[in-house]
C-alpha cells in the first residue's frame, strides 16, 4: 500500500512502481488460487486447528498434563476423562492437547533450522564451485543413512531431550533440502534475467538474495512443508524408542510409548494420540500438495492435467 503523492487520476507510473504493483497483483492471485485449492484449504484448516490447540492448551486442557489421578488409573473414556487416563491416572485428552505444543515446537524449529542450513549449504554449493563437490559428497554421505535411522542414532548418542531431537532431525533433513535448493538455484542461475542483472553490474550478494533465492523459495517452501510433516512423525518415533523428549513431557510420541504396555487393557492411550498425529500430518501433506500444485505449474501440469 505505497501511498504515492497525487494518485488521484492515473499518472504515469515509474517502472519500479509498475513492478511493485505487478508483484502485488501476482501475490493476490497466488493467494486466491491457494485458498481456492481444496487440498490446501483443508490442510490449512487442520494446521490452524492444530496451532490453535497448541496455543490455547492451558485453557483447553481440562487438567494439567502431568497431574496424577491416583483413583482413576487406566480409566476408560468417560465424562470425567473424555479420552481416558494412562497408567499414572493422567488425563489423556489433556496430555494430547499439551502434546501438540511439543510436536509443533519440534516441527517449527526443525523446519527453521533445516531451511536456514539447507539454504546456506545449497547456495554455497551452487555458487562456489570448489565447495560444490565437498558439500555434495558430504550430503550424499548423510543421505546414505536410510530415513530416520540417522536421527535415531544421533538422538541416542546426544541423549534424550527435545533440543537433541531437534538437532538430530535437522541433521537428517538438511541434506535433501540443501540439494533441492542447490538444484533450483542452478536452474535460476541459468535464466536470462540473472544474466541481465549480472550484465548491468549487480553484485553477487544482491543477485543471490534478490533474484536467485527469491526464485528458489517456492520449491523450498514445498519441501519444508513436508519436512514439518515428517518431523511430527519422527518425534513420535524417537519418543517411542525412548530417545525423544523425556517423560513426563506430554509429547504425542511419549503418550503412545506409555500406552504400548497396555494395548490390550487400555487401547485408548495408544489409539488417540496416533490419530491426532495422523490428522496433523495429513493436514500438512495436503497443504504441501496444494502448495506444490499452485507454486509449481510445471509439476501441476504433469500431475493433474497431463491426461486431459
Amino acid at each position, binding site marked *: 500500500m505505497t501511498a504515492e503523492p497525487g494518485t488521484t487520476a492515473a499518472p504515469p507510473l515509474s517502472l519500479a512502481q509498475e513492478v511493485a504493483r505487478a508483484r502485488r497483483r501476482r501475490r493476490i492471485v497466488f493467494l486466491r488460487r491457494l485458498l481456492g485449492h481444496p487440498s490446501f484449504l483443508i490442510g490449512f484448516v487442520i494446521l490452524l486447528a492444530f496451532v490453535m490447540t497448541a496455543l490455547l492448551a492451558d485453557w483447553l486442557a481440562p487438567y494439567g498434563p*502431568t*497431574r*496424577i489421578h*491416583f483413583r482413576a*488409573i*487406566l480409566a476408560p473414556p468417560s465424562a470425567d476423562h473424555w479420552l481416558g487416563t494412562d*497408567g*499414572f*491416572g493422567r488425563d489423556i485428552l489433556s496430555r494430547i492437547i499439551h502434546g501438540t505444543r511439543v510436536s509443533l515446537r519440534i516441527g517449527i524449529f526443525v523446519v527453521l533450522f533445516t531451511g536456514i542450513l539447507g539454504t546456506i549449504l545449497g547456495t554455497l554449493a551452487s555458487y562456489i564451485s570448489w565447495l560444490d563437490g565437498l558439500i555434495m559428497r558430504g550430503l550424499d554421505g548423510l543421505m546414505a543413512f536410510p530415513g530416520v535411522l540417522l536421527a535415531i542414532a544421533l538422538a541416542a548418542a546426544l*541423549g*534424550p531431550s527435545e533440543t537433541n531431537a531437534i538437532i538430530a532431525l535437522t541433521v537428517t533433513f538438511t541434506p535433501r533440502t540443501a540439494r533441492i535448493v542447490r538444484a533450483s538455484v542452478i536452474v535460476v542461475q541459468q535464466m536470462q534475467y540473472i544474466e541481465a542483472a549480472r550484465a548491468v553490474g549487480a553484485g553477487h550478494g544482491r543477485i543471490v538474495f534478490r533474484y536467485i533465492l527469491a526464485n528458489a523459495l517456492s520449491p523450498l517452501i514445498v519441501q519444508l512443508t513436508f519436512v514439518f510433516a515428517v518431523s511430527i512423525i519422527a518425534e513420535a518415533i524417537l519418543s517411542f524408542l*525412548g530417545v525423544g523428549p*523425556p*517423560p*513426563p513431557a506430554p509429547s504425542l510420541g511419549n503418550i503412545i510409548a506409555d500406552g*504400548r*504396555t*497396555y*494395548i*490390550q*487393557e*487400555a487401547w485408548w492411550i495408544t489409539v488417540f494420540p496416533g490419530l491426532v498425529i495422523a490428522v496433523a500430518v495429513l493436514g500438512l501433506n495436503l497443504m504441501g500438495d496444494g502448495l506444490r500444485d499452485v507454486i509449481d505449474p510445471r509439476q501441476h501440469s504433469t500431475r493433474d492435467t497431463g491426461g486431459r
Partner: protein
Amino acid sequence: MRPRLRQAGLLRTLSTTAILALAAGSLAAPGAMAQVHGGELVFVQGSNPPSLDGMATSSQASRNITMNIYETLYGLSEDISPIPILAEGVEVSDDGKTYVFTLRQGVLFHNGKEMTSEDVKASMERYRRVGATANKLDPVRDIEITGRYEVTFHMVGPTPTFLESFSSPRAPAVIIPVEDADTEAGRNSFVGTGPYKFVEYVPDSHVTIERFDDYSADTRHDSVDGFGGFKTAYLDRVIFRVIPEPGAQVAALEAGEVHLVEQIPMPAARRLDANPDIVLHENMPWAFTTFHLNLAEPPTDNVKFREAIQVALQMEEIMAISSEGLYELNHGWQYPDTTYWAGDIGLEYYNLADAERARALLAEAGYNGEPFSILTDSNIPQHGRAAVVIAEQLQNVGINAVINQVDWPTALNIRLQDEGWNGWTLQMGIEPVQGPVAMIATLASPARPHFAVPDAELDALYQELISGMTVAERQETHKRIQARLYEIFASIKIGDSGLMQAGRANVKGFVPYRFPRVHDVWIEG
C-alpha cells in the same frame, strides 16, 4: 503397627500360589503329583542375556538362564540362607581364617568329566579375574587343593559373613571345568553341572537348553530348595525367548505360543485372572523401591531439605503406580518377618504426605526454588514411573523437581558423579534378600554409598555389623543402622514391590523364586 496394603483386592487365587511357594519344600516332593517327562517349554523374558558365562555377569536376564545350567559350591536356600549345593559341606577353623570345602563326589559336567577340586580352584581363580562381583573373593588370600574332593580357602582375616556373600547369586561363583580356566569373560564353553545343558544362543532371539541326562542330583534333599536341593529335569528342552515388549509377551502367552512369562504388567494380570488357561504366580516381595539423594550437591546436601522430601512423599501413591499395584508399604531396610527386621524404627517419618510440614522444613532449609534433578532410566519401567510420581508430589510442595531420564548405563555413570543429580530411583532386587550386610554395603564405605558422601556414623555401624559375631549382636546393630538412616534421610525407602509372573495352566510345578527354575517343571497334556 506396620501398614500393610495390597492394592484393590488383588487376585484371591494368588495367595494359594504364595503359600505353595513358601511350603514348596515339603509339598512338591517327587511322586506327589503326576509329573510328565518330556516336552518343550518356552519361557519369555524381556531382555537379552548379555552373557551366558554364569560368573561374568550380574544381569538378571542372564541369571534366569545360567542358574539352570551352572551350580555353585554354596547357594541360597528357599528361605535365603546359605546351603551347600556342589559342596558336601564346609569346615571353618576357630580363628575364622581357613574354610575347608569338601565336594560332592561323582558330579558330572556336561562334557562328561567328573568335577574335582582342580575344577573348583580353576573356577575360583577365573572368578577373581572375570567375575562380575570379583570383590567377594577379596577376603580369600589363596586357594589350595587339599584332596581330590577338597579345597581350602585361606582367608586374609576372619570374615563372619563370608559364606553369606560367597553364596550370593548376584554374579554367582559357578563351578566350570578346568579346561575353561583361561578363557576370557563370556568365552567359556558354557559347560556346567546343572540339570540342563546349553544348546544354542541366538542373541536377542532365544537361548535353548536341553536336559542333561547324566545330571547328578543332590540326594541329600528330597525336593528343590532355593538354588539347590534335589532337582529333576522333566522337560526335554527349554527355550528362553526374548520379547522386549510386555504387550507382546502377554499376547504370546494368551495365544499359547509360550508357557511362562518372567513378568507381566499388573493390568494384564488383573485381566487374565479370570482366564482358566492362565495361572498367575506372584513373586512377592521381589525388590525394594528406593530413592537415593545426592549429599554432595545442593539442595540435597542440606539435611532439612532431605527431611522435607521424606515427609512430603506419599509412598502409597508412588508404590501403587510404580509397581502397578503389586506392593506392600514398608519403611524398613529389611523385609518384614525376616531375621534382621528392625520393627517400627523410622515409621513416624514414613508415608506422611505432609505438605505443610514439608514447606516449613523447606523454609528452614532456606530453599529457594533451585532445581531438584531426579535421575532415572528408561530401561527399568519401575524406575521411570516412580520418578514421575515423585516429581509430581515434590512439585506440589513447591520443590522445582525435574526428571532426567537416561538409559540405564548412563544413569549408573551419572550417579557416580558428585554433580548433575539430586535424587536417583532404584529398585534393589538382590541386596535385601541377601541380608543386612549386602544391603547396607551399598550405603556405606568402602564402596561409594548410593547417596554419594559417606556418613561416618553409618560407616562405623556397618563395620560393627560385619564384625558382629552373633546374630543377636548384628540385629542390634541393624536397628541402630535403620535409626541412623532415618536421621540423615540420605536414602529414602519407598516400599516393597513384587514381580507378577504368569504361565499357562498346563505348566505344573513352577514355584516362583529369585530365578525361574525350569527344572522340576513339567507340561501336562
